[in-house]
């Protein structure tokens, strides 16, 4: 087949001879380097069909060199592996408790790409100028399934009593019906074990007025009287917060929380404070950036 084959005629012949299609198509690819000129000739004819009107582009005179993704992403200024970060102070709040005013925080921050993130979580309580029960966790977060990620890392308890260090393994994600779930298991020194479970939900009263029920529970494998922790289910905190998002990033809220020390922990607290259950009124701020 000549290099100067009229491509249109070639295609017509292909139509007539469907069985030879693949073979001819290869020949087309290999033997028509000056494709453009062929087409220009056709375009100049009286034909008005788009087959005649279409002119394929000439091959690039200065093609760019082949390059790995990294280099290409830099040149494109487009990189789907770009890491990002977020800090969420979910609860910065004041509670009216049996012991007086308490300030509580709960927040998290992450930095990373779509698959792997460095995750920091912290929560705690300050009463009368001293930090009570507080913890910070440093985790590696890896998305595992459509809705859940695995978290591995460590946790440090501080505040009231001696500090405790734990290794952490957990799951977090979005359960059906939009429940945010966190379940983390801990192994500490001297055979200590613990678990923390948390669930929250958001109910839109309006686009900006949002009711957020939340429940959290802590469990311990053995008692730690120095930190007023008994074995078994130690405490739970059920809260209902109503926030108004002035902006998505900034929302003051009011709420109510029922916090209760139970089991062996409850006995330890009751011995000191007289009551292990408390209904508290809350005012706070939710901020993220």
């Amino acid at each position: 087949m000549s290099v100067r084959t009229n491509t249109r005629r070639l295609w017509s012949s292909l139509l007539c001879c469907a069985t030879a299609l693949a073979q001819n198509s290869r020949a087309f690819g290999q033997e028509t380097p000056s494709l453009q000129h062929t087409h220009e000739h056709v375009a100049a004819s009286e034909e008005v069909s788009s087959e005649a009107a279409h002119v394929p582009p000439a091959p690039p005179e200065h093609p760019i060199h082949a390059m790995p993704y990294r280099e290409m992403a830099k040149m494109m200024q487009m990189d789907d592996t770009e890491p990002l970060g977020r800090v969420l102070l979910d609860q910065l709040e004041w509670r009216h408790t049996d012991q007086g005013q308490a300030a509580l925080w709960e927040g998290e921050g992450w930095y990373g790409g779509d698959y792997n993130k460095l995750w920091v979580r912290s929560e705690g309580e300050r009463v009368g100028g001293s930090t009570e029960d507080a913890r910070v966790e440093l985790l590696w977060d890896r998305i595992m399934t459509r809705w859940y990620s695995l978290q591995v890392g460590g946790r440090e308890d501080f505040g009231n009593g001696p500090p405790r260090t734990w290794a952490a393994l957990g799951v977090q994600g979005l359960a059906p019906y939009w429940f945010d779930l966190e379940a983390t298991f801990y192994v500490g020194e001297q055979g200590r074990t613990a678990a923390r479970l948390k669930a929250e939900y958001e109910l839109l009263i309006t686009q900006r007025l949002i009711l957020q029920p939340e429940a959290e529970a802590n469990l311990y494998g053995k008692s730690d009287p120095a930190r007023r922790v008994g074995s078994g289910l130690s405490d739970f905190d059920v809260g209902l917060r109503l926030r108004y998002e002035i902006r998505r990033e900034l929302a003051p809220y009011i709420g109510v929380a029922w916090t209760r020390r139970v089991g062996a922990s409850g006995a330890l607290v009751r011995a000191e404070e007289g009551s292990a259950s408390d209904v508290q009124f809350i005012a706070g701020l939710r901020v993220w950036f």
Partner: protein
Amino acid sequence: MVGARHLRWATAGNPHPVLSGTEFDLEIGGLPVNFTGTPRMATVVNGQLPAPVLRWREGDTVTLRVSNRLPVPTSIHWHGVIVPADMDGVPGISFKGIDPGETYVYRFRVNQSGTYWYHSHSRFQEQTGLYGPLIIEPRGGERHEVARDYTVLLSDWSDLDPEHIYRLLKVKSNYFNFHERTVGDFFRDAHTEGLRQAFDDRAMWGNMRMDPTDLADVSGYAYTYLMNGTTPTGNWTGRFERGEKVRLRFINGSSMTYFDVRIPGLKLRVVAADGQDVEPVTVDEFRIGIAEVLDVIVEPSDDRAYTIFAQSIDRTGYARGTLAPRVGMEAEVPQLDPRALLTMADMGMAHDMGAMPGMQHGDMHDMAAMPGMQHGDMHAMGPAARHAPAEYGPTVDSIAMAPQSRLDDPGVGLRNNGRRVLTYADLHTLGGPIDHREASRDIELHLTGHMERYIWSFNGQKFSEAEPLRFNYGERLRLVLVNDNMMNHPIHLHGMWGEVQSEQGEFLLRKHTITVQPGQRLAYWVTADALGHWAYHCHVLYHMEAGMFREVIVERMGQKGARP
């Protein structure tokens, strides 16, 4: 006042600057603008937003010297124009990009005609104003004689830094959606449809962790919609004398916004799509996807003003302009249409599957032979969808179990609205396909994503994870796109036309950017006659950034690296 200079663009009746000929000097730089009362910097060509209209002539060889006065690299891509691969303007694929202070000379022969556009292919410069119309006059003269000819370029402007918009979407994907369903909506639905129905509906969407109000990632909360660079208040105006034929070349140059366009009181005669002449079809309204182009002819018979109304798909705002006999005249601006909810069809499911209790979304792929499915639906659904393994991984939140062709579906929010709405099934490109061969093979790609994590991909693989697609030079192949996702994706293949197949497998229309609706399966032919490396991507700007992008390599068979 920095905004003062820009205000020219916001003034009604100003003709849009046009550059014509064969030699062009385009300078890319910053421009202070003020669309909302807040001064901002735009990225523009020759100090203009949109960039000047370029007028070329079919058959001419054009030279475009593009100089970069920005502090960052830039580029220009001639959207829909078939040019050699090194002239296509995609950094990293076509060329190295244009560094600050540099000039890149684009030079190529123009072998086609019609309405196109040009825009930056660097980072988010498209979002900050780097787009302009491109008109190529046919050698033999226009097919349709008109008295007046206007380009109507729609875009979405934000005072927010696009870097910030992208980050917000990544960390909180529903950030811009202020139309989610509330407790009040539940009670209203319970009242009108019954408690059971309202509850089942919430349960179904909640079970999938999908939001039926998720029509657009970025809304009017962040955007001011522009027509020819003019705000709705600025009211861009095109003049006409009654009885004249007026050609309106609609270009959607926005980054994230689908527009539904109509001109109350006028019939729209659609004569070309993506620069390709079509059998004229008369409609009341059309949806124009990001990067799509439609030429429309109108004949206003009355001596009055008409509003060009382009509402965003999520009904959070509109671009607006006026056709009027005299500048300063205005017509009534319609109310935004009610906001629609996504339906079962948009999920790629047959309609009667909606009420199936306890359906697990992850199980959908197993449900092709679902009991109770209507036989009639089976026919429309075509073959049951098969999905790549990566689609069952953590980066994809939904798959279409029974995607349907639905080329005659005007899409969510336009169905049964009492107006005649354009669909792809109405469009027939004149002259037939560019290549009459049957496809020698199919390449099936699924449009995939994870809304919560804001990850976008083809077949569950982001650009960084995917090998390039390889086409054999000269082959005619068929791309089969299945939208597993609940959003519209305008898919753009550089360098080669896409020839959309009708449901019966016949040639329908030729396009450079093809919208695949949620839950839709759409097939189109491609003739791989363009040697080199090309971009293939979703034209939703932040979807592309987040991974919905592939490199296509057209190479001679047997060449190094070629696959069988």
